[in-house]
């Protein structure tokens, strides 16, 4: 997110935003908020490690990945604002919405926990993000497909990073193994929400704008299972799955995160630096 006044005039790609009927446009705004909010909130959570990671290289890596995610969030939220057409830019969407208006999955807003929680969460989210972005590269919406293609390349690096750490933690010491398994067991119930679909998905899938998420759960599960087993860990049993983030019903943790993230713009509206 940038709040600096900028001398260069900006304009989007000509023809990149197709004309859409109102119902489709409203659904697309919601979908773009989901994509943007997932990345903004997870990026913020990862940025909390800056200065606190177990080793210097990891500190830099997590900050790098946070930067990628916040960059991707900027692009998705900017497109959401342009599609909505109500004059909100990416900064207004990030800094001036209440928790109830955020559309991220609950998984990404949970506290960062220990290093195992951060790595397991990032792996579970990253693999799902990979398949969703891969589907979005075939969107009939040129701007959306372009952003997805960009983000897909970055996501491959993120997943590999988290996956390699998962192998090290799971197949490491008794302590790291125990913590990785506990993280997996705790977070598993939040994974189902990543593949839930509703009326927003239905109308957009029908128009060829986005991929259907439901069929992506099988390849996600196969990838996750493969790495979890190689890490000598156990895939938890799927039982009740938490949900609510996509419609604004969040855990108490999101409000605290937003308080920290938004305080500058809330207390000094329009501040630039």
């Amino acid at each position, binding site marked *: 997110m940038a709040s600096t006044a900028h001398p260069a005039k*900006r304009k*989007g790609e000509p023809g990149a935003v197709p004309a859409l009927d109102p119902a489709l446009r409203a659904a697309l705004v919601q979908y773009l908020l989901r994509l943007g909010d997932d990345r903004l909130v997870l990026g913020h959570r990862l940025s909390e490690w800056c200065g606190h990671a177990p080793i210097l*290289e990891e500190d830099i890596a997590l900050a790098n990945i946070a930067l990628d*995610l916040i960059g991707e969030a900027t692009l998705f939220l900017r497109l959401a604002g342009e599609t909505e057409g109500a004059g909100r830019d990416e900064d207004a969407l990030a800094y001036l919405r209440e928790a109830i208006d955020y559309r991220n999955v609950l998984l990404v807003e949970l506290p960062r926990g220990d290093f195992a929680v951060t790595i397991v969460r990032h792996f579970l989210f990253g693999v799902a993000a990979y398949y969703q972005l891969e589907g979005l590269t075939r969107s009939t919406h040129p701007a959306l497909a372009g952003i997805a293609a960009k983000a897909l390349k970055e996501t491959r690096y993120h997943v590999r990073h988290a*996956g390699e750490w998962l192998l090290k933690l799971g197949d490491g010491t008794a302590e790291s193994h125990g913590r990785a398994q506990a993280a997996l067991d705790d977070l598993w119930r939040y994974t189902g929400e990543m593949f839930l679909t509703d009326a927003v998905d239905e109308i957009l899938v029908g128009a060829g704008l986005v991929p259907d998420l439901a069929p992506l759960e099988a390849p996600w599960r196969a990838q996750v299972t493969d790495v979890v087993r190689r890490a000598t860990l156990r895939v938890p049993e799927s039982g009740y799955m938490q949900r609510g983030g996509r419609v604004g019903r969040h855990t108490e943790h999101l409000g605290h995160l937003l308080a920290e993230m938004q305080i500058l713009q809330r207390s000094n509206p329009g501040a630039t630096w």
Partner: protein
Amino acid sequence: MVTRPGGDVVTAAGTAEPIWGVLDQVMDPEVPALSVVELGIVRDVEVDDEGRVTVAVTPTYSGCPAMRVIERDIVAALGAAGWPEVTVRTVFSPAWTTDWIGEAARAKLAAYGIAPPPPADVIRDGESPDLVPLRRREPRVRCPYCGSSATTERSEFGPTVCKAVMFCEHCRQPFERFKAI
């Protein structure tokens, strides 16, 4: 093609040529060995018959914090060279790849102390991705200082998002490598 009001036609490429020359002097703020043209991030230059310039730029990474500095530098350099009205347009498709960095630019990178990127890994349509390979086959990276191939990767995420941290076992020197993307 640009049609002048008088009716004579000049090619856009001919008019844009000096602009490309100016842009080739605008260095990347984080990799000052390369210009934004050599880096492959300037995708298109258009100039209309009023002399208004539009430069299309694609980001290296979506969170690259240097993008705004690059835009500002482009506007400033063209302003100083006699094009006061410049619009910088951001394009995302096709996504930037390190394969767009040419041979001469790669040599400059190495001379600057940054190992150039290996060819980007492309996933073909329908191919099942090996997202977490058990054993990665990294191409041999030569140390930009001593030329030794006895190098190891310390971290895939370096001081900037586009670079990894390497270590040369021969001259015991850490160095940066441009990541393939």
